[in-house]
């Protein structure tokens, strides 16, 4: 009886161990799988050319990713520039200024926002942001814009990463001891001075981690950006130009990628590139956050 129970315990332990290893190993398997698929294109074209060439002619076997990389960078940069200051101000307001009752109303809306699927953000972008840019923003700056632009992509992405940044920064701000803030207030500092000189400094690692996480989220976001940013394989030169980020490239062309030689390999290289960058960013920010958590536990 006892030995049977112990045996059962051991067997289950082994099964669970296997599941755990398998699910973590998915990272490796994805990385290796994507790499193996991108080997053909890497053998034919040098990594340097792939990353810096602007010529994208799949039918001729020319794969220059530069416009797509730039598209991704433009959209991500716009999103962060919009989202970061807004989210920092919001987080400070929520943690330092709002009374409890108001906080109980505000925080759920940020959470609800995080539940909305990307495609809905895309629809919103098409129906609201794109016309807004076309009719009301772009005319002030350029002669003509369809509204489908890196700016539209950046705005939609910014809204998508609001909840991510706000929730992490709020969490980090809440861990700053009240006595530390009191120490500054007791010296006669105003709340804003305390935020700027004490809280902001103390929360810096957390804010950096949140930003890195938001960047990697923005890099990988596919459908919402694809729907609003025009998908034109040229390097954008202004925020009103269309762009064509990497994930959109993959999503738009999966149908035909098997019918053109090397095309599948090139697209899988794009996926591999995304994977590596995002993996790196995530590892960095998660380690920062885990360290913060551990420091506070002590």
């Amino acid at each position: 009886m006892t030995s049977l129970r112990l045996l059962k315990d051991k067997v289950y332990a082994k099964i669970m161990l296997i599941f755990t290893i398998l699910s973590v190993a998915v990272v490796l398997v994805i990385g290796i799988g994507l790499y193996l698929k991108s080997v053909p294109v890497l053998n034919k074209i040098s990594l340097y050319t792939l990353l810096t060439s602007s010529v994208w002619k799949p039918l001729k076997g020319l794969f220059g990713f530069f416009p797509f990389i730039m598209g991704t960078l433009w959209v991500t940069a716009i999103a962060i520039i919009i989202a970061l200051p807004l989210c920092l101000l919001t987080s400070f307001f929520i943690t330092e200024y709002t009374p409890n009752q108001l906080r109980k109303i505000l925080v759920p809306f940020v959470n609800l926002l995080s539940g909305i699927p990307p495609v809905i953000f895309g629809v919103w972008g098409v129906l609201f942001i794109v016309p807004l840019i076309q009719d009301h923003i772009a005319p002030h700056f350029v002669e003509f814009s369809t509204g489908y632009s890196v700016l539209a992509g950046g705005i939609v992405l910014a809204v998508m990463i609001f909840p991510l940044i706000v929730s992490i920064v709020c969490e980090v701000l809440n861990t700053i001891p009240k006595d530390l803030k009191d120490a500054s207030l007791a010296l006669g500092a105003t709340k804003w001075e305390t935020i700027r000189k004490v809280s902001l400094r103390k929360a810096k690692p957390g804010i950096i981690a949140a930003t890195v996480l938001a960047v990697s989220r923005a890099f990988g976001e596919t459908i919402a950006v694809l729907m609003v940013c025009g998908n034109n394989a040229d390097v954008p030169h202004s925020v009103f130009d269309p762009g064509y980020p990497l994930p959109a490239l993959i999503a738009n062309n999966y149908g035909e990628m098997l019918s053109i030689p090397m095309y599948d390999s090139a697209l899988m290289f794009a996926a591999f590139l995304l994977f590596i960058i995002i993996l790196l960013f995530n590892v960095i920010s998660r380690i920062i956050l885990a360290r913060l958590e551990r420091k506070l536990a002590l």
Partner: protein
Amino acid sequence: MIRRKLEENFFRTLMILATILVTGSFFLIVGTILYRGVPFMTWDMISKIPGGGFYIGKEGGVLNAIIGSLYVAGGATVLGLFISIPVAIYINMYLGGRIWLANGLRIAFDVLFGIPSIVYGAFGFLIMVYFGIRASLLGGIVAVTLLVIPILVRTLDEVIRTVPKELGDATLSLGATRWETAKVVIRQIRPGVFTAILLSFGRAIGDVASVLFTAGFSDNIPTSLHQPAATLPLAIFFQLGSPVAEVQGRAYASALILTIIVLIITILSSILAKRFSKNNSR
């Protein structure tokens, strides 16, 4: 003195404006979807499959996508639970004192959570090509399962961590094995498991990039795992690009349906999570 006070008020105003913008964006989005979606919401929309092809046919609704989405999200969540419950238990109860290992695994799952769905989709597509499987319900479920495992593991892990260690110790000291203790713990966290299910379902039902390559699209309701299946997000994405006004309307209505489903799930899960944390803090 006055300058400092002005500065304080200036930034306070700025913060209020930012907060209004950030929280208000939610209303802006839901408002837009409601405004465009409601006029097209008819009974046919949720009770019929599209007539005459989803891209140009003017008749019918999006029942195929609703059912397809429920199949994919439901299947992936069930499959995901099957894998993640053991993983979460293993991380918490079988690693003994090796906290660094548990924390390392937690970071690994957080990282997995951060990998974009397009990468999962591309990878799923690779596997399917390798094994010669065509885009189908099964393919979609497998790809989405990969996507939701990290969410499930981390949510369950957080929940298990709230179980007082004394409970486990009490059971263990009665001579129970770790597995028997784990069963007690699972019973303890049942509402938490439900929260995890909701979160996973919500993410699964809304994701496009993972099913784009793997589940295909079809005007019909799939009757076997090997048939392609439509999903709501894809129905929105494809039909929005149609030149036919009625088809675009179907996209708006689908967006409304998806938004409602997801909002209900999010609200339910946060209520549950709140209740759960209350029960435990006592």
